[in-house]
């Protein structure tokens, strides 16, 4: 019984931080691409520009932060032991960065070579990440709801990556037929719902009650949400592939499940015992409101006449990715980065026994001051509103792109200033008389 080893504290700071600091850069690349391509990009979700953009955002920003956070948190959250974290983290990060760039280049006209390189790099990077995490979770000492939920989320990622790789092989011209439709449809559904939404739900029911001191999520939701969503996604997949009857029903039920999760989270946040509000809480509330709207508009798009259905589906996708997923990721970063900086400073201080009682470390709120993160929150909210308006008024698209550039730049600067504070405090500890 060696489960005790998993109680050890965090992997080196550089492991998660390289993921967290890369994410705003990919956000800047995506926003820059939006500015460059202009309104044409919204003409279809399947245009090459839209595909390059969405993969820069989903792989370069969302998956980037999620992988870094999971490498950091799974040892604490689920007793998973990651061996050689520096090597695993470094390889996974490097492959994800280069693979995402090649994929975007492939969509933007580099052609088959871009896709070939992307398939190899992303297959190795995400496949390796899945193998390490899956192996760790399979041996996790206790089977709590969070471990069970996390397994579903990783399975969702595995299916998404599998479908993505087969699409990528089709684009590579290696003799495989490109089954663009229906595989793209399934790739999108499993990626958004089986991976992103499931992971956020699992993380939420673990972290929201802890950090905000709310009542716990209903046990039945924790027990059945992930499994239920997977059953519905399976039904949806068969409806798409085999022409099963009632094709719209699983999509509508999935929207209902996500709306229920969002409403429950908002209600729990209203019941929290801590009254101190912070930027992270603002982002979580915005994220849940975004999910609720995305579910409602997504459901409406299934029932609407074709003339408006495409615009509704686009608005729902934007709300899901930027209003929901990116907001929650922002909220997580503003808690996890200052805390990790503090934790690693604390560990460094502990090694200087003779002076450790004379140095007072900065607390989280002075490592990343609240007014700075608050500013970025309002910018994020405004950028989201203008982008949604651009679905109806394409002239607003370029102004929206500029606002997203500013949003990601400010996020990056905020995270960078916390990192630099770490450097200066390390020097202060090392050179303290």
């Amino acid at each position: 019984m060696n489960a005790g080893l998993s109680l050890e504290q965090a992997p080196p700071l550089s492991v998660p931080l390289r993921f967290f600091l890369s994410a705003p850069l990919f956000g800047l690349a995506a926003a820059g691409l939006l500015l460059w391509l202009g309104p044409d990009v919204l003409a279809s979700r399947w245009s090459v520009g839209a595909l390059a953009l969405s993969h820069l955002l989903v792989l370069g920003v969302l998956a980037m932060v999620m992988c870094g956070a999971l490498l950091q948190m799974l040892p604490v959250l689920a007793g998973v032991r990651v061996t050689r974290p520096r090597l695993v983290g470094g390889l996974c990060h490097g492959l994800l960065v280069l693979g995402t760039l090649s994929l975007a280049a492939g969509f933007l006209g580099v052609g088959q070579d871009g896709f070939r390189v992307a398939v190899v790099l992303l297959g190795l990077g995400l496949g390796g990440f899945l193998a390490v995490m899956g192996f760790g979770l399979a041996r996790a000492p206790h089977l709590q709801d969070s471990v069970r939920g996390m397994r579903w989320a990783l399975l969702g990622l595995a299916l998404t990556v599998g479908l993505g790789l087969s699409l990528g092989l089709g684009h590579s011209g290696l003799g495989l037929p490109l089954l663009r439709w229906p595989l793209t449809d399934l790739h999108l559904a499993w990626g958004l719902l089986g991976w992103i939404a499931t992971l956020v739900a699992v993380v939420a029911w673990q972290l929201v009650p802890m950090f905000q001191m709310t009542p716990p999520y209903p046990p039945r939701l924790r027990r059945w949400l992930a499994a239920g969503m997977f059953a519905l996604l399976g039904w949806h997949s068969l409806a798409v592939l085999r022409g099963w009857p009632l094709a719209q029903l699983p999509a509508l039920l999935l929207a209902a499940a996500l709306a229920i999760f969002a409403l429950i989270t908002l209600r729990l946040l209203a019941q929290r015992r801590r009254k101190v509000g912070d930027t992270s809480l603002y982002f979580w509330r915005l994220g849940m409101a975004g999910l609720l709207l995305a579910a409602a508009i997504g459901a409406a798009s299934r029932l609407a006449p074709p003339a408006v259905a495409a615009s509704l589906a686009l608005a729902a996708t934007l709300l899901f990715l930027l209003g929901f997923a990116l907001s929650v990721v922002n909220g997580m970063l503003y808690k996890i980065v200052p805390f990790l900086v503090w934790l690693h400073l604390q560990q460094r201080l502990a090694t200087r026994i003779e002076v450790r009682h004379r140095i007072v470390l900065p607390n989280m709120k002075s490592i990343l001051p609240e007014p700075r993160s608050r500013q970025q929150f309002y910018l994020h909210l405004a950028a989201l509103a203008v982008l949604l308006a651009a679905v109806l008024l394409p002239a607003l698209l370029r102004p929206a792109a500029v606002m997203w550039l500013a949003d990601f730049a400010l996020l990056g600067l905020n995270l960078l200033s916390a990192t630099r504070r770490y450097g200066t405090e390390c020097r202060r500890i090392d050179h303290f008389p």
Partner: protein
Amino acid sequence: MLTDFLTADHRVCDGLFAKAENAANDGDRDAARAAYAEFEAAMAQHLSIEESVLFPEFEARSGMAGGPTAVMRMEHEQIRAMMAQMRQALESGELDDFLGFGETLNILIQQHNMKEEQMLYPMCDRALADRAEALLERMQAH
């Protein structure tokens, strides 16, 4: 059984922490001072129960003196140091610092509690099943 008792104690401490934090957030120094003293006492009691009753029993039974309990003891020291900084901020009237240290302390305590509630306490329940009742009495009397 041990898990239930100690987990409930965590929630009591959480409530007292929130009370002190909320009072400081309202700018009410006197209420913050009173609530924080209550929180400090409850935490000190909880940490001491673990360190002088639960951990020694578990270490003796499992033969793992350098294992999980050593990590938990180290985190207890971090928690105590942070609580002392909060007290200092409160006594010098720096409510913003008090809240900043409080946010850090809350994350520190919550991730520590999670490790205990989900891993260490269940391990103790299994390892010490035959004497859980006697242990529980000692903890309550501590």
